[in-house]
């Protein structure tokens, strides 16, 4: 059996996989149900999504978005689906109130983070539980560079660079990537769960340092009065406007991530993920490619940090805790690992849903459950994580190749069982 398993892990370019991939291509999940669907359903759903905010006054708009996104993402191979999804993401928040727009901002932000973490976990197969470190690095970079003297830390008061949000973005890319490499070097030899716990440790170390290095970071008092991004003579100061900034960056990140995945680098990552020893004996420099994965993932996380710092107008060390890393990892896996399309869906579920639940209530005639949404939202969230994993362990929208591998593994399992 071990022998059979090993065979399964062979690089995907070898012949048995051609067959699996071709088969998966022939019947992509979901398309069968929508043989004629796209041409009828998409315009309807799109129109519904655009009109919904005007018709529905409740948080149902969010749930509607969830449904639209799910349907669109399943059939996103058509340009049609992409257009409608993009239209929905742009139009739907217009009819939302401030609270919902805040949720949408978080969803866009976590989508961006998810894309970054997916490079590390999904593409290169390196389990990183300390992704918050890069998020924090971006946020603190923004805070240290742009904070006015009144809100800045003692250290940062010594200079005034006069740069804005837009200039900090590329800086964050570079700085976070460097930190990614710096944290990546010591863990190169580690695998699997050891890597997970060490990266988790890095996340905590960065947070505790930010809390205690008062001179540099102002400690738990935080850095505040951070300016908003300027935009043609005005400032982007609402969650609604920053939502579009986050969304735009997420879209750029998606395109970049998909292109890297399909390049030589992406194939090297895949080989490392499937079997590191084989990959290295095939002449892939695993050190370089692993560090590259850490760097790219970290850079995207750094961008996210800059956005959150600009949105909040302040940074506090305890906002950058393990929960962030766990949420990002959960959304990547729930969405379907290795697949950037799943990430949006994962973000809607993991980041959006618990907040939307706040307003949800049903009357069961029991006082305790009067505000079931507000009081039990995290209980419900925990239970849904378990439920989703038990029902769809490969995630809601796994990449086709993953789905095929998974199916094959199950078939093999069954064959061996009989």
């Amino acid at each position, binding site marked *: 059996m071990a022998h059979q398993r090993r065979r399964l892990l062979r690089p995907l370019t070898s012949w048995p996989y051609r067959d699996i991939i071709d088969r998966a291509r022939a019947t992509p999940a979901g398309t069968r149900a929508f043989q004629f669907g796209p041409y009828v359903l998409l315009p309807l759903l799109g129109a519904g999504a655009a009109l919904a905010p005007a018709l529905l006054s409740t948080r149902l708009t969010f749930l509607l978005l969830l449904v639209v996104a799910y349907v669109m993402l399943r059939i996103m191979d058509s340009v049609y689906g992409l257009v409608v999804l993009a239209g929905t993401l742009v139009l739907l928040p217009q009819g939302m109130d401030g609270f919902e727009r805040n949720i949408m901002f978080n969803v866009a932000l976590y989508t961006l983070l998810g894309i970054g973490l997916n490079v590390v976990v999904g593409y290169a197969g390196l389990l990183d539980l300390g992704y918050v470190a890069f998020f924090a690095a971006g946020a603190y970079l923004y805070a240290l560079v742009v904070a006015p003297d009144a809100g800045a830390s003692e250290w940062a008061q010594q200079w005034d660079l006069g740069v804005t949000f837009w200039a900090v973005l590329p800086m964050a890319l570079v700085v976070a990537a460097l930190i990614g490499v710096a944290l990546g070097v010591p863990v190169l030899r580690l695998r699997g769960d050891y890597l997970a716990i*060490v990266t988790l440790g890095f996340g905590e170390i960065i947070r505790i340092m930010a809390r205690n290095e008062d001179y540099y970071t102002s400690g738990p008092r935080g850095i505040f009065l951070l300016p908003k991004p300027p935009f043609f003579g005005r400032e982007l100061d609402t969650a609604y406007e920053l939502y579009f900034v986050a969304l735009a960056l997420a879209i750029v990140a998606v395109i970049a991530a998909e292109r890297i995945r399909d390049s030589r680098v992406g194939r090297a990552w895949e080989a490392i993920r499937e079997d590191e020893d084989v990959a290295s004996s095939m002449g892939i420099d695993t050190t370089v490619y692993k560090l590259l994965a850490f760097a790219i993932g970290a850079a995207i996380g750094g961008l996210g940090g800059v956005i959150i710092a600009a949105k909040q107008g302040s940074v506090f060390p305890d906002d950058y805790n393990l929960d962030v890393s766990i949420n990002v990892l959960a959304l990547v896996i729930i969405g379907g690992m290795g697949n950037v399309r799943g990430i949006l869906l994962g973000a809607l579920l993991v980041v959006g849903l618990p907040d939307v639940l706040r307003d949800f209530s049903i009357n069961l005639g029991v006082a305790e459950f009067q505000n079931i949404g507000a009081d039990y939202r*995290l209980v419900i969230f*925990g239970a849904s*994580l378990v439920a989703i*994993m038990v029902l769809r362990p*490969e995630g809601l929208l796994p990449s086709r190749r993953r789905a095929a591998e998974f199916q094959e593994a199950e078939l093999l399992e069954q064959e061996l069982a009989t």
Partner: protein
Amino acid sequence: MQQWIQLTIDGITLGGVYAVIALGYTLVYGVLRMINFAHGELFMMGAFGGFYTLDAFENHTTLNDSLPSLTIAVAIFAGMATSVVLAIIMERVAYRPLRHAPRLAPLISAIGVSILLRNVMLRVTNARREVLPQVFPRGAIEIGDVNVTYIRIFLVALSLFFMLLLYVFIQRTKTGTAMRAVAEDRDTAALMGIDVDRIIVLTFVSGAALAGAAGVCYAMYTTNAAAGMGFLPGIKAFTAAVLGGIGSVPGAMFGGYFLGLSESYSTRLIGAQYKDVVAFVLLVAVLIFRPWGFFGKREDRRA
């Protein structure tokens, strides 16, 4: 000098707690190759099991005064029972269906269980910190110039007792042998007639029993219980398990004490604000030179 003795005693007390929790991680990892992220929550639920038992006994002053050991024993058993029952449900509902799933699926499922349990307890306690009734006799014995409270001695003794018990169970009993066999090679063990499902449940049960007992004792030691109390000890115990070499029982014990002592000494050497960092810095340092931990098997491939 006196200070160092005090720090050593602190470290051993804390180390014992870490070691007992770490054993649960290491057992489950050894058998399933899975990080049970909800293990810290089992520790927390055990503490609450003990708390509610003590709370129920609070008004029986005669019983508490004449036989405090009985109340304490009942509380510890209640804590163990709570954790064990939860662990059985957890394994059946959240982990067993995922045994052949991709490696990260059980991890997320475990995180889900952990979020669920923590928030249920937050709701039940209204996010309050519950203070345990004082049943454990106060007082201390003096060793030289250093006071060692009874509860500490009890904690150290109990953790040693549990570790010994577990060691004997794993090394000397038939079930323990079966457990080791499943950890070594599940398929072959099944072919030898071992009921793998039963052994996996038993592994969870023994880990949970230890976590529950540790939870009650830790709560008595700090005199309170809160929904968030499992997080840090859980993470650190896991670190201890990895330090010692995850999957190895003596490794987890050693890792626990090593971590407890280093943490305790570091409060004096570096400063208390960085004591939580010490665990992770040590971990990185050790794993760079011995990626398989102190006692782990030198296994270069981990699927």
